[in-house]
């Protein structure tokens, strides 16, 4: 119930609409964003069973263009971005020279020489600065497009049907992690089949001046099948159930992709050198032979909720730390992601608990994700 100085916060193009819907707003990375509109649990369930509508305009868009756009991104990021086909997207990361993760990203290849890089709001400036710095010597331009886009996501099993009613674009031909330019409800949009919920869904990048019109059209088309507006609170529990990492929690500059169990995003076989290669090669060996800690899932046997920063314990010793925790609406129990010592990381390891304000509550070690949708 703190009264933050909301005047200093950035507002999205949908701000007035959120307020008219009675949203509870929250400061997220300097943006005034909807936390929830009503019950966050109901919003979560709507996305799992029907559809949810999200304003994600805080995400940081950066455009990279030019004859050497692919070479620049192959150098600056850990993935093989040059191999991404036009109209496809890739989950990747940007690392420091020492291998520490600066951010996780989705990169869309819009054309042969044009990419859209989407960074977390909290890291957008860091990513932008790093890309500009790393572009030296490449025939490519890095452009700050944070103000050029509003981003609206429609997520959930009903989302394809809702979107189909508003566009002629070939959604059946649009695979997971693909994106194509099109028109939705008369509004020009980059239509991407991506998301952060563990459900089928779409992310629509549009000009900010079209955001309200698109939001209203999606609401009208989706309400009959149960679409509801959803805030960042349920986005967090949805991604947690789906075992997806969140920067600042599971991913930090102190960790390499290998430490986070995401070494698969690092492509040593790609052409050319890339920032962090030497350190990441060492991190790969370390993670294979002698991992310091391993990211695991924890499921509570009781009802008390583990929170980020709580200690994971076994035999009275601290063996790890919770990075994200929440009551899981789908499992009906508290869940958490945590880094734990390798010796205690196998699913089913006995005697693991979480120190919840002094009381050691029993937890089951499970493999991630907690939830996987039926296809």
């Amino acid at each position, binding site marked *: 119930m703190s009264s933050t100085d909301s005047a200093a916060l950035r507002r999205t193009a949908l701000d007035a609409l959120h307020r008219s819907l009675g949203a509870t707003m929250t400061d997220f990375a300097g943006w005034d964003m909807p936390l*929830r509109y009503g019950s966050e649990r109901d919003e979560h369930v709507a996305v799992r069973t029907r559809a949810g509508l999200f304003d994600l305009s805080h995400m940081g868009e950066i455009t990279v263009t030019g004859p050497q756009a692919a070479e620049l991104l192959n150098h600056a990021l850990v993935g093989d971005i040059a191999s991404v086909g036009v109209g496809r997207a890739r989950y990747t990361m940007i690392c420091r020279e020492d291998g520490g993760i600066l951010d996780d990203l989705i990169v869309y290849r819009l054309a042969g020489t044009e990419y859209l890089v989407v960074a977390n709001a909290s890291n957008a400036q860091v990513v932008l600065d790093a890309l500009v710095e790393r572009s030296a010597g490449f025939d490519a331009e890095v452009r700050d497009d944070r103000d050029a886009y509003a981003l609206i996501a429609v997520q959930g099993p009903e989302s394809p049907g809702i979107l189909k009613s508003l566009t002629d674009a070939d959604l059946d031909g649009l695979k997971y992690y693909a994106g194509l330019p099109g028109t939705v409800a008369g509004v020009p949009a980059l239509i991407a089949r991506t998301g952060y919920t563990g459900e089928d869904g779409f992310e629509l990048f549009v000009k900010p001046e079209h955001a309200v019109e698109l939001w209203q059209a999606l609401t009208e088309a989706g309400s009959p099948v149960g679409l509801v507006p959803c805030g960042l609170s349920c986005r967090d529990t949805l991604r947690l159930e789906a075992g997806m990492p969140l920067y600042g929690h599971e991913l930090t500059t102190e960790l390499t992709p290998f430490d986070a169990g995401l070494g698969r995003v690092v492509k040593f076989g790609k052409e050319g050198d890339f920032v962090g290669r030497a350190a990441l090669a060492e991190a790969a060996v370390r993670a294979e032979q002698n991992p310091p800690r391993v990211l695991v899932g924890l499921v509570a046997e009781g009802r*008390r909720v583990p929170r980020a920063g709580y200690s994971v314990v076994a035999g009275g010793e601290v063996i790890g730390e919770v990075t994200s925790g929440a*009551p899981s609406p789908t499992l009906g129990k*508290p869940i958490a992601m945590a880094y734990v010592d390798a010796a205690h990381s196998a699913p089913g390891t006995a005697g693991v608990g979480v120190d919840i304000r002094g009381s050691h509550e029993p937890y089951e070690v499970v493999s991630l994700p907690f939830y996987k949708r039926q296809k």
Partner: protein
Amino acid sequence: MSNPQQLRYSKEHEWLTAAEDGVATVGITEHAANALGDVVFVQLPAVGDTVTAGDSCGELESTKSVSDLYAPVTGEVTAVNEDVVEDPSLVNSAPFEGGWLFKVRVTDEPGDLLSADEYTAFTAG
């Protein structure tokens, strides 16, 4: 939202009924419930415990956070709401009724409890 006139309120967002045979019922306000979001776990004091005005006597877990439950008055706990322990969402759906938390035999109360109008003004700020 409107705060029932017949109740008194603490600045920690608890409400309190007028004592009947010395026993008052305690809950958290709708304002507090809305700020917490969906309540998923409630830890209440035990029957027979002595609670002290202004001190933590339990906790409320919501999706995003855990918050202390403060005793608005001093006294002995005579009953706890087992329904709300079983179904914490009652705190959200009926904060002033089915979502009550515990009953306390009041032995002392602080001088700064608020009337409904004072609490409404307090939370408007």
